[in-house]
């Protein structure tokens, strides 16, 4: 065999091998690191190796990506009374605007894999993009004269999508109020009203042979009280499973499961990538944090479910950023300790979950059910999302806006007072007075 032929054969073999490896990764493996063209944003990095979660079809452009975005974010945007939904831009009268910014597609503003040009909220447009449509705002709002268009969304005044706590009439309606309300309490739990309950079970009725401390813990738990036996969780498929996983819990806790899977803790599972773990995250986590992967039981010990543990200790066992570390010395934690010691009524304490997985009232057919929102994205970024669902349970709107705009205060877990003031309420009040006087 000639030398030239040998080189050709080696080259072809290497090419075929490489193609085989890449093809195998592309077609057969859930994670495709070789095809990642760049890091994704804080919202998507957990699932960035699952290409087809967003690129649902190899043949398709922005429209397809937009549909994938809406597949996860549509309800969140509806709940936020989205100020700029796609349907506001599709009228041909906006064609000149769309030539500048095609606001009918999520990815026109939120491009992924472009870390070098990604700003807050995963926006990949220049930060003064509001100018394109609102350049004449000072005509109607002289108070806005001279304000930079890069400050619209960064000064605690406006958001592109969620303005539920920021619109003018809301500012006016909530212009006054004490820093801390006299009856500062979060919603009371309504119990698991929407879950079918059976007759309570005792220790002797456990239908599996397990370690005594496990069965004893179960017998004292809400699960035993609700008539949920060992096999109800461990044998949902008809075969005993030591680690039944999220699917087993969802047979009763459907809403909690869907929130978990939509949030940062469960989105990898939803994408078919296996469980999220501290080692896979970008935030700082404790060196000894459990790396076995997150599911319901990571925070809620199924045999001794204690919501008090899930509200703080479970979070603190992993999270190790400044905000989390400073919680123990915060006024919020102090209230929680007093609640635990029965020095304050239930609902007075503020836990990690109070703010990041808040209790929310859901009314249907005249019945109110309070559920915990397990999708922390619903109350995370931009942080003004928390104002109405969380902060205003206890604080005035003005204090909430000021506090959420103060990064130092956030980092020290609200140990002190806001160092700056957001003037939006003052501006709304002044304008209202001026209009009434005219």
């Amino acid at each position: 065999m000639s030398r030239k032929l040998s080189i050709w054969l080696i080259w072809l073999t290497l090419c075929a091998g490489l193609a085989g490896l890449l093809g195998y990764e592309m077609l057969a493996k859930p994670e495709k690191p070789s095809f990642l063209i760049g890091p994704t944003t804080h919202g998507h990095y957990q699932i960035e190796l699952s290409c087809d979660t967003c690129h649902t079809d190899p043949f398709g452009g922005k429209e397809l990506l937009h549909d994938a975005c809406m597949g996860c974010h549509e309800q969140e945007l509806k709940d936020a009374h989205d100020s700029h939904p796609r349907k506001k831009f599709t009228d041909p009268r906006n064609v000149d605007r769309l030539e500048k910014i095609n606001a009918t597609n999520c990815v026109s503003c939120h491009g992924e894999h472009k870390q070098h040009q990604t700003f807050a909220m995963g926006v990949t447009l220049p930060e003064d993009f509001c100018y394109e449509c609102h350049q004449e705002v000072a005509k109607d709002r002289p108070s806005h004269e001279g304000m930079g268009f890069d400050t619209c969304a960064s000064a605690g005044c406006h958001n592109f999508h969620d303005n539920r706590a920021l619109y003018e009439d809301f500012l006016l309606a909530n212009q006054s109020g004490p820093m801390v309300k006299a009856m500062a309490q979060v919603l009371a739990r309504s119990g698991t009203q929407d879950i079918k309950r059976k007759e309570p079970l005792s220790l002797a009725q456990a239908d599996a042979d397990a370690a005594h401390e496990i069965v004893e813990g179960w017998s004292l738990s809400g699960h035993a009280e609700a008539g949920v036996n060992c096999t109800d969780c461990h044998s949902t498929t008809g075969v005993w499973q030591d680690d039944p996983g999220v699917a087993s819990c969802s047979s009763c806790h459907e809403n909690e499961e869907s929130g978990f899977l939509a949030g940062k803790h469960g989105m990898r599972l939803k994408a078919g990538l296996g469980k999220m773990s501290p080692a896979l995250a970008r935030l700082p986590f404790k060196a000894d944090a459990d790396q076995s992967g997150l599911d319901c039981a990571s925070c809620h010990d199924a045999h001794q479910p204690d919501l008090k543990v899930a509200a703080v200790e479970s979070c603190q066992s992993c999270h190790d950023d400044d905000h989390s570390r400073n919680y123990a010395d915060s006024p919020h934690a102090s209230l929680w300790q007093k609640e635990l010691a029965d020095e304050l009524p239930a609902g007075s304490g503020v836990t990690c979950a109070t703010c990041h997985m808040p209790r929310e009232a859901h009314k249907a057919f005249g019945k109110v059910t309070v559920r915990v929102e397990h999708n922390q994205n619903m109350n995370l970024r931009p942080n003004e999302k928390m104002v109405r669902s969380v902060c205003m349970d206890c604080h005035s709107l003005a204090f909430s806006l000021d506090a959420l705009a103060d990064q130092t205060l956030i980092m020290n877990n609200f140990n002190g007072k806001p160092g700056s003031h957001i003037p939006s309420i003052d501006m709304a009040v002044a304008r209202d007075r001026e209009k009434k006087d005219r």
Partner: protein
Amino acid sequence: MLKKSIICAALVATPLILTGCQDEPKAVGIKPELYTDSLFAVMKADRTNYTKLIIKRLGPAGANAIAPKEHWQDLENGAPLPAQMFRAGAEAVAEMTDDFTYSLQSLWPINSQNAPRTEMEKQGLEYIAANPGKNFYGEEKLGDTTYFTAVYPDVAVATPCVTCHNEHKDSPRTDFKIGEVMGGVVIRVPLGG
């Protein structure tokens, strides 16, 4: 005379008979004006019905069971104002089809985004304001597409409409009277293609 009449009748009847004998009926399009007039009739009927059958009957002037408010979503018993309901319809249609679009606009809008944006919108709104009872029709090219654009007057028919617009702090005009044109419904249909 009879012969002439027979020939004339034959000349008139022949094309009619021949047309009737064709396998395929001749395609007959609908005039854009008739199309937009029809759409407007449905829109106007729905809006009137919402105002009379829901807002008037169940709102503060009736059973007081619902609160028609601008920020209705913040109230448990909140209901969209008729103009907001109309816009919600336009947005819902925009999610279903791009065969036509419609919007509620005004030369004196409470929300400046509802002021005319194209030259034809401005022309149409000015025409219907200056010519009460008349509609405006025209063609305009936006992007690569030519549209048939119709503008229909939106007349103040109820006291709450006038009061709200005159008293709203964002309203650029505060002297509306019952019966006046407050704005217009712009319906746009792409032509050709």
